[in-house]
């Protein structure tokens, strides 16, 4: 192995840093509660801009065969078809246009008929790059399964955390996860970004990433509880978050770098997905430190139960 140069990594992190997270927990939790309430309000007032997956209807991405696409002309042509108000926007480049036709009254057959009208009206100046038509039956099923997927994802995670840690950790985790999901949904409601199946996948991944972070901090809390039996709980939570902070930041930066690359270069089709993921990684990291851990402080942790088991274990021996 001598052909590999030996050089030390750059340890950027001031390891004796002790940030007083718990001192600001009330402010942090308060802000998050306000954020969650705003998200809920946005969700119920603005609502989400559902994509065809959930709302039904058609989406057609077209590309001009020569020159740039003429959004105005397309709008003129399509508004005459009597298919409601088509949404027409440039997509990625000036050549590409995304057309959304709302779900037509009637049934499955009417959606296909609408698509045919649009395609006929566009003629040969444009080629279709993507067509998505979702009928009323499928869209309502996708809505249901999407909702169930997020809820079962949450429950699966919480069940695991409950199984591995004490119940207080599970409470902290579920509140933190709800927080992440709500804020992401609120952001999509605020900016009216399209919310489709891929965003549900993003929400589930955010859940996974966020709980990953929470578990790392929780593991450390559990370890420190065995190590420092008489330390004040808030002090112990602070210590645990600080001790894992270098890892939190490094992993977070790597994930952000990768997601940023996907967001910038990954193409128009999955841009919303990557946006949700970027936001989710930040919010998920935040919630582990500022939501999940403080909740343990509020709920309190039983300090003696774990000690008995640990007293005979290797951890205590090493700590002495």
């Amino acid at each position, binding site marked *: *192995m*001598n052909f*590999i*140069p*030996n*050089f*030390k*990594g*750059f*340890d*950027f992190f001031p*390891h004796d840093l002790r940030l007083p997270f718990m001192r600001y927990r009330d402010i942090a939790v308060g802000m998050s509660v306000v954020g969650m309430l705003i998200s809920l309000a946005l969700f119920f007032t603005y609502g989400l801009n559902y994509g065809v997956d959930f709302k039904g209807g058609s989406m057609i*991405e077209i590309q001009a065969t020569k020159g740039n696409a003429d959004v105005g002309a397309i709008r003129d042509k399509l508004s005459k078809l009597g298919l409601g108000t088509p949404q027409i926007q440039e997509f990625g480049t000036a050549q590409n246009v995304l057309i959304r036709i709302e779900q037509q009254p009637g049934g*499955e*057959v009417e*959606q*296909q008929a609408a*698509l045919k009208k649009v395609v006929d009206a566009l003629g040969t100046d444009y080629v*279709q*790059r993507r*067509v*998505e*038509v*979702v*009928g009323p039956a*499928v869209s309502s099923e*996708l809505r249901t*399964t999407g909702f*169930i997927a997020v809820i*079962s994802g949450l429950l699966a995670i919480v069940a695991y955390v409950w199984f*591995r840690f004490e119940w207080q950790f599970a409470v902290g985790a579920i509140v933190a996860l709800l927080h992440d999901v709500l804020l992401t949904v609120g952001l999509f409601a605020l900016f009216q970004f399209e919310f489709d*199946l*891929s965003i549900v*996948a993003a929400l*589930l*991944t955010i859940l*996974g*990433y966020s*709980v*990953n972070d929470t578990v*790392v901090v929780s*593991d*450390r809390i559990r370890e420190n509880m065995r190590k420092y039996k008489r330390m004040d709980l808030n002090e112990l939570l602070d210590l645990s978050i600080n*001790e*894992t902070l*270098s*890892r939190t930041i*490094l992993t977070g930066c*790597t994930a952000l*770098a*990768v997601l940023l*690359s*996907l967001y*910038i*270069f*990954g*193409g128009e*089709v*999955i841009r919303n997905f*990557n946006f949700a993921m970027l936001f989710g990684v930040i919010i998920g990291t935040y919630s582990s430190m500022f939501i999940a851990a403080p909740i343990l402080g509020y709920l309190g942790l039983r300090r003696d139960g774990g000690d008995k088991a640990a007293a005979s274990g290797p951890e205590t021996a090493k700590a002495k």
Partner: protein
Amino acid sequence: MLHFSRWKIVVILLTVLGGLIAVTPNFLSRETLDRLPSWMPKRQMPLGLDLQGGAHLLLAMDADDLKRTWLLAIQSDVRRVLREAKLNFTGLGQAGGVVVVRPADPKDNDAVLRELRKIPQQVGNALLGTAGADIDVRTTADGGMQLVPTDVGIQNRISGAASAAIETLNRRVNNLGTAESTIVRQGRDRILLQFPGLSDTTLLKQLVGQTAKLTFHDVNAQMTAADAKAAGRIPSGYRVYPSAEREGEEYLLRDAPIIDGVDLVDAQPGFDQRTNEPIISFRFNQAGARKFGRFTQENVGRPFAIVLDDKVLSAPVIREPILGGTGQISGSFTVETANTLAVQLRSGALPAKLTIVEERTVGPSLGADSIEAGRLAGIIGAIATVILTVIAYGTFGIFAVVGLVVHLLMTVALMTLAGSTLTLPGIAGLVLGVAMAVDANVLIYERIREELRNGKPPISAIDTGFQRAFITIADSQLTTLACAVVMFWLGSGPIRGFAVTLVFGILTSIFASVTVVRLLISWWLRANTKSRRTVEVPV
């Protein structure tokens, strides 16, 4: 922890080698693969429709349509069994999804009931406890009798029809010339069609959009459809059929066909020799030819109707008996519609109407753009990860990068072996998997640093670092796995593609980022403790 027995090293290296071999076909062209010896793996990871372009159609079977045809069949069964038993009956018809009939003479009640009980069949799966008769025969208080299709019967009907529909669709789309199409059942009454490389779905939709049930009917000689409607009474056994050609035109036809498409053995598009219009010429099998011959012999000078999907295509007058079992259908066909209809008639009718409930088509240019974008984003993301890791952890960072390469390799190998398709969300999943695999190394190295700061000797610090971090890694991976499994289980389309890569990423990350990296570090330690007495850990 840092000692590896020889066999363990061999197992690790063989696993990586296996991964490498499994991945290789993905980078070779089809021709190169064909030239390889037969024992080499040739499986490539198929690209999803969003990457290679193609069409995805989800069809739903019209259960109402199916029930309607079934009720008609029950009705004619009732007529047949009662006639065969020479029992008189009245009021045979349908009411609210039920076939009703009444014995002409109440004395015959028991005999009629006995005959009707011959109609239901046992269906379903006895093992699953879902078995039962497909029709329930009941008597009503006023002396009538009802034949009620049971739930088991309807389910059985639908699933039978779905299988039959898949066969028919397979025969129909064979004519499209797309080699790798898949047609599979989804759920109870849905059929999923996937056509890689097909971006113009017009013809496909025409092919699947029509039941193509061809029947030949007797035309009522006494009265026209307009007369019957004016009189407000349609003669029993007859029904009004609309014309396929002219709006508003209607025919009064006997409901039971003389002959139907089942007896058709061939249908070819062609041209009428006199008018040069597109037509379809057909040929009956022997039984069909005999039936048709007898009917035309008996009815020279009278019209009969050619009906397609309950609409009258034409109603020619029989000039002379048609005994050869061949004939031609004219209508206002274009060359294309004649071609499509000929294919449909040859392939047989669908058991029920299929409606398109979901369509997703991606053109080849978008697919290529997506691959390009995914590749670029992946490369840049990977470079960023490598730079961050090596700066943060030096030599050990290089080991972590090797671990990441192995991770990516094994993930793609597993996906290739499992035959799962790579989709655009899948690429995002791969890239994200790498970012999460880095986390394992970050956890280990941060822990080693911590142990070193606490004054542990290097080797013991490394050892404890791996041990302690492992618990956390396992916990965090398992929670993510729980999430990914839910995604796979409930998700459809993009969610599933993403979940698959995530699951494989998690499965390989412990091997790649923990085991392989630990092996590299143990080799490094051996090399460096020989040359120097104390080791300085480059982390």
